């Protein structure tokens, strides 16, 4: 009997897609993975609506209103939610803007930037509003597992996913845990 595949959704919030690239670095192991999981909403599928999922992978921290919305939707629809990568865990590089007032960041980029013509701060209603500070995802929703790294290597992701899918306790080796 073929076991039903687990539904997995992924997203990149305030991240650089580096963790998703690391996921793709699984290379031929992706075939093994595809036998056990089915992707729902993800930058890799382009499915827009999130369905009911077994596992959600969150890359990146929370920097704007849309990030908060997507994150809360993932928490509501995913049985197990995993924060992956430095930005999801502690805000990472985007959170370095927390050293400055948001107004100063916007003015530096859009008013005082080099070579700007007709400088103005974008205010189209379709652009999600920025939060005053960037936050790690665990400050917004409950997270079940954390996978550090910038990004976590494909080997780390593979060990983690294999253990999770087979119901074993997650136990990564020394070289598989790093914060950089």
């Amino acid at each position: 009997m073929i076991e039903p595949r687990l539904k997995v959704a992924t997203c990149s919030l305030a991240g650089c897609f580096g963790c998703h690239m690391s996921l793709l670095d699984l290379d031929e192991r992706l075939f093994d993975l595809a036998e056990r999981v089915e992707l729902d909403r993800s930058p890799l599928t382009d499915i827009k609506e999130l369905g009911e999922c077994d596992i959600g992978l969150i890359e990146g921290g929370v920097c704007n209103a849309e990030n908060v919305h997507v994150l809360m939707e993932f928490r509501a629809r995913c049985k197990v939610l995993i924060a992956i990568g430095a930005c999801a865990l502690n805000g990472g590089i985007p959170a370095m803007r927390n050293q400055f007032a948001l107004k100063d960041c916007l003015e530096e980029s859009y008013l005082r930037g080099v070579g700007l013509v007709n400088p103005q701060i974008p205010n189209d209603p379709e652009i999600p509003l920025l939060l005053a500070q960037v936050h790690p995802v665990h400050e917004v929703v409950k997270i079940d597992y954390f996978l550090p790294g910038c990004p976590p290597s494909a080997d780390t992701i593979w060990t983690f996913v294999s253990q999770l899918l087979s119901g074993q306790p997650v136990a990564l080796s020394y070289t598989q845990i790093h914060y950089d």
Partner: protein
Amino acid sequence: MSAEQCFTLDGRRVPFQDGQTLMAAALDAGVYIPHLCFNPEFAPHGSCRVCLVQVNGRVQAACTTPAAAGLTVQSEIEELREMRRGILQMLFVEGNHVCPACEKSGACQLQAVAYYVGMQTPHYKHFYPRRPVDASHPEAVIDFNRCILCELCVRASRDVDGKNVFAVQGRGIQARLVVNTPSGQLGATPFSIHDKAAQVCPTGTILTKHRGYETPIGQRLYDRKPISVVGDVAQLPESRGGRRHD
């Protein structure tokens, strides 16, 4: 008296000399107890609490507790690992520790101890304090975002270098590392990169300029082996990936 005095550490007999602390005796016996503010070249400080051990059932700092014959000391038990993990998590959220953007990453004692105690996430709410970076010195840069107030630079500059370049100002959550000049700038002090104070920082707070990436990420001290095996970055010579001048 020549009979060897011993205490037990995680079931193992550890000999000690009169006046030694639990930490010093463990170090001599080659047993690792995680620590940050402790450095064997300096008087113990007892402030970071990472070296907490159970001494006859009571939790005490190994670096300040005198060894005594017959003590039963436990270090590698889950209860203590959890406490140490909590301390590391609080240290990480209290400052701005952005490992991917730090030159010290991979050869950082704070990071290595966090790996050792199994910290997967900082867990707590981040403070994101606003702290300055001082690049006024021609040879060194100080990034106060990464300071954990171990006072090793304060001790080294005062007691070894005789320069008294650093101090801790304020109390409680307001406490912060300062440079001892009217301008507060490192460039205005006699600090030198050859000072002991430049070699003892367990984090990426005090960095040597122009040499940050001489050793590539991935080939650094703690990239392949844990701190319990390779030892403290401040204790190892530069030729072995440490900070101590050869």
